[in-house]
């Protein structure tokens, strides 16, 4: 399996595991989180689509290092795992930091 594909799958698994086994912020059970991710996904398509458009790419992916599926637009599908891990990880950290915040 291409390395970026493996790395992305691993990142998603790690973030989900961190939430379920350690952080336990409960975000996966909230509408707030899932609505957020839907909005983030929509804007990722626009921003990432711009970054990866094959006509004039800003970020150029080595064809051998990802699965080769670009959707939607020219976005390598791995990017959505990357984005999920980045944003979910940040929200988990935000919730943890808020827990410690002096109430």
């Amino acid at each position, binding site marked *: 399996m291409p390395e970026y594909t493996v790395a992305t799958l691993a990142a998603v698994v790690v973030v989900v595991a961190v939430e379920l086994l350690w952080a336990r912020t409960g975000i996966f059970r909230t509408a707030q989180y899932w609505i957020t991710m839907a909005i983030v996904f929509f804007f990722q398509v626009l*921003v990432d689509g711009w970054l990866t458009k094959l006509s*004039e790419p800003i970020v*150029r992916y080595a064809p051998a290092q990802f699965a080769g599926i670009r959707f939607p637009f020219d976005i390598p599908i791995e990017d959505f795992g990357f984005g999920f891990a980045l944003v979910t*990880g940040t929200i988990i*950290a935000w919730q943890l930091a*808020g827990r410690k915040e002096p109430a």
Partner: protein
Amino acid sequence: MPGEYLLLMAACVAITLPLEFVLGARVYRRPRRLLLAVLPLLLIFSVWDAVAIARGHWDYSPAHTTGWLLPFAVPVEEVVFFIVIPLCGLLTFEAVGRMLGRRAPAAPAAPSAPTSSAPPSRSRNVPSLPEFREQGHVSGAKDGGTGVGDA
């Protein structure tokens, strides 16, 4: 244009500003918490980026980036990305929370006698106003009560 990637990031910051200042996300106004949320992911993803660049997973168009490189050949744009995108995510998360909170202000109300084994605020960092008052803070907190000790 060499500044294109950075401009795109600036656009992300600009377009999400109303979430903070119109919808009351209160993310910029909790800088310590923001830093604690962004920093760990910034470090992890910068390492990921450095490894991916070193192993040739991707590179950056010289025509659309500044060419300013950080250690391990990570473009400065990437670090900006790892700050801006999480920031946008948090602004969205908090704004959505505010919207949901407005529609249903009586989120599981502070139980007067918590009998369940789970702590009442397990999955919510923001205490409801009644909880907040119970904790002995002044009434009339404007923002649902997380303003104390923010800055």
